[in-house]
């Protein structure tokens, strides 16, 4: 069976000014979806000091991602699903300097731009997976590679998935062949707090810093239900039950709030020029305090409807907002609660029954939630599915139709583009084909909801990173060099 101990979050620290700027854009673009990270802080709260004095000034492990050289390119004559709820037939997508310049039926192609004939083909934004463990549970899946779960303690908010990622995981290349341009890599779900996740661009790289999505917020992976209680209860320690899990969460948030107050108090004194010793940094509490401030997005692995409702109340009690419930196979039972709290859902269509809390999973989940106005993402959590999130979405569309809910394709494409971008806090930068956004684009051989569709050309920041007509673009990771590997 595929491992399911996954799910977490963690973007890098985004300068506050940038986040504020993003917020405006995001709200405009996202009509109906949840606001960006900074909106978790009440609007009337004054912004905190620029940087807590207890934290180091330069962000550690900063992104060194550099877009590849990109020719100005126009894809002409294709059917375009923009990721904003629109379909354009016989349209043009124009990319220059790594950005989307124009999208529409009447776009003039500048002289000198490379023109790609898209007639009979389809264009979508780059596919985004809001729940992946590539690199932390890489292939081959040997013990020496198992770096996704720090499962010796249920409270590991101090670990960061990016410190486990092996960029040579050959599955990054396979995901690229499925059109995946960005992904959120999370720690596993053995722990209540699994640690920080990291958003990356799906480019060949030697270091994780070269992949880190520039400006993406950090995320925190939390997990409810069978995995933590199973992991620790079986070893005679807490949490052994769901009530034990909730008690554990609450105790941790109490500690985090106290830590945040201490840091704030010190910073205020420091700002007044008073002396005093800075509180010793605590990496775990620093992450949790970041959540309470709204800087770090909560990605909560949670299957059952009743548990999600309890976790929403934990958030209310301690003043944090859940960005998304992951897996959330029973979310269809509480669509109203999710709409009210503006929480996204990242889920599958097909997986069910592998454990008790997945017994009520139904293919109709995404369609029911979409119709209710919930921001939904179809995610993978595994190595095979990440290669065909488009097919998984088609299953979800068909199930909706069977239940009398017709989600149009121009809306459903958001499940694997704009909505995961929103979950990751990067919807202002990518996830839809809109002028000014990163030119993360896929040219499909057919309608992307067809099982026969192949991602023929994949662009990341305007650079052609995969072209099925050009074998030179077929990247092999170091691990695959000299091995008897086949085609994707």
């Amino acid at each position, binding site marked *: 069976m595929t491992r399911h101990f996954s799910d977490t979050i963690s973007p890098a620290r985004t300068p506050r000014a940038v986040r504020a700027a993003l917020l405006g854009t995001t709200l405009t673009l996202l009509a109906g979806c949840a606001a960006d990270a900074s909106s978790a802080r009440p609007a009337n709260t004054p912004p905190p000091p620029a940087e807590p004095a207890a934290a180091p000034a330069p962000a550690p492990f900063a992104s060194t991602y550099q877009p590849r050289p990109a020719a100005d390119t126009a894809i002409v004559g294709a059917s375009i699903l923009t990721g904003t709820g629109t379909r354009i037939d016989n349209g043009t997508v124009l990319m220059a300097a790594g950005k989307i310049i124009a999208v529409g039926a009447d776009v003039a192609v500048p002289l000198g731009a490379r023109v790609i004939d898209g007639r009979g083909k389809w264009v979508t934004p780059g596919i985004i997976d809001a729940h992946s463990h590539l690199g932390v549970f890489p292939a081959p899946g040997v013990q020496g590679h198992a770096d996704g779960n720090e499962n010796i303690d249920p409270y590991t908010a101090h670990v960061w998935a990016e410190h486990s990622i092996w960029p040579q995981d050959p599955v990054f290349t396979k995901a690229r062949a499925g059109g995946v341009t960005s992904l959120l890599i999370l720690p596993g779900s053995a722990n209540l707090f699994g640690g920080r996740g990291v958003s990356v661009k799906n480019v060949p790289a030697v270091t994780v810093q070269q992949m880190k999505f520039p400006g993406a917020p950090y995320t925190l992976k939390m997990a409810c239900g069978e995995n933590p209680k199973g992991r620790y209860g079986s070893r005679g320690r807490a949490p052994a039950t769901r009530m034990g899990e909730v008690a554990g969460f609450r105790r941790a948030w109490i500690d985090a709030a106290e830590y945040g107050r201490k840091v704030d108090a010190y910073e205020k004194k420091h700002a007044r020029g008073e002396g005093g010793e800075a509180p010793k940094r605590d990496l775990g509490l620093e992450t949790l305090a970041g959540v309470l401030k709204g800087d770090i997005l909560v990605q909560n692995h949670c299957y059952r409807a009743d548990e999600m409702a309890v976790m929403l109340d934990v958030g209310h009690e301690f003043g944090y907002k859940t960005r998304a419930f992951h897996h959330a196979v029973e979310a269809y*039972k509480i669509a109203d609660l999710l709409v009210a709290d503006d929480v996204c859902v990242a889920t599958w269509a097909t997986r069910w029954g592998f454990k008790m809390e997945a017994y009520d999973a139904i293919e109709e989940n995404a369609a*029911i939630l979409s119709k209710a106005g919930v921001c939904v993402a179809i995610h993978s959590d595994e190595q*095979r599915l990440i290669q*065909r999130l488009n097919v998984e979405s088609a299953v979800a569309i068909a199930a909706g139709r069977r*239940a009398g809910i017709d989600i149009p394709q121009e809306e459903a494409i958001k499940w694997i583009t704009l909505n995961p971008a929103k979950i990751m806090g990067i919807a202002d930068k990518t996830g839809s084909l809109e002028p000014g956004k990163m030119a993360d684009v896929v040219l499909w051989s057919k309608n992307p*909801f067809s099982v*026969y569709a192949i991602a023929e050309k994949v662009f990341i920041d305007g650079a052609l990173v995969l072209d099925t007509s050009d074998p030179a673009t077929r990247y092999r990771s170091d691990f695959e060099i000299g*091995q008897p590997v086949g085609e994707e």
Partner: protein
Amino acid sequence: MQRRLPVFTGIALALAATASPVAAQTFAITNAHLLTPGPVGEVQNGTILVRDGRIAAAGANVAVPSGVRTIDAKGATVTPGLIAVNTALGLLEVSSVDGSVDNKTHNSGISASFDVQYGLNPASTLIPIARLGGVTHAVVMPDYDDSDKERELPFAGKAALISLGEGAAILHRPGVGMMLELGEDGAARIGGSRAAEFVQLRQIFDLARQAPRDEYPFELSQADVAALKPVLAGTMPLIVVVHRAADIQQVLKLARDYKLKIILSGAEEAWRVADEIAAAKVPVLINPTSNIPANFDMLGASLQNASILKAAGVEIAIGGNDAGHRVREMRYNAGLAVSRGLHYAAGIEALTLAPARIFGVADQMGSIAPGKAADIVIWDGDPLEPLTQPTAIFIAGKEQPLTSRATELGKRYAR
């Protein structure tokens, strides 16, 4: 896209209202886009005549006797029911709940003699869910329980073929194959090395072949030795789960040496030795989406496996994405293989007639042809596409409900 044809909802009523029991069991599907392996092939405007649960006639020029109830398919695609391989349907409810899982044992006296036919549960909720994917039959196979690390038992036991028909006695034929896993995981069960694994297997076969009734070799029980007899006689296929090309070559050699009838399963690197497999006339059960170099057994795993094997002349059957809950995805897997070069008709065949041939029931099922069971699915589009759904499913001529526990849950909450 075509929605469910309203005519089908009337079938049960029409049957109930008919006076003659013989007439009640006769019906015709007309105006059908027939898509089937076998002599009937693809027929744009075809008719199927069903009598007493069997196909009486099928094709372009089939006369429907007067008075026989007809179902107008209105041009919809009609295929044989899909036959799933590599499943645990009927043996499994919730994977992590041990008490609901019956496809494996740690009983140290039961290996080759483990027999799935005794564990079948026709009320499993997985059955209607698989059926809604157009699956009408499944090969149910045993697996290994590795909780006892001391156990050195190479065989998982005997597979069976079941029907997914509602309310029926689901066992169709027991003993359709003997399961054996080799490669990395298989070697781990018998000493940790392939070099030991094949030696031990050969020893077991030699001793089992010679064993008098009251003696038995190694840890094999008397029941296990008896279970291996048909395998050694070449009447029961040995289904060998294997991945690496070199291991596949060893298995082919083992089969030659002992005159075994074998079926390869998994076989991610089979494409690298496709010609040898074709020459040995050995069929392969594959999941085309198993393209991850998940361990050092399958560094060559590729989505092209299906098309390369077929081009070399190997018989292939395509399975779903797990043994139970995701069996219904088998048709998408065939579609993905088609997207990577497998001929479309071969994709349909790999879900229907190929598994029927591989498991020795092609005279009964696997295609729409006179004399075969009326296992028929009407679809609202291309059956390999996820956007397509079945609009009617017949097993042995009996119309099946288009509902499952999952669709009922959806209905309760969909607004």
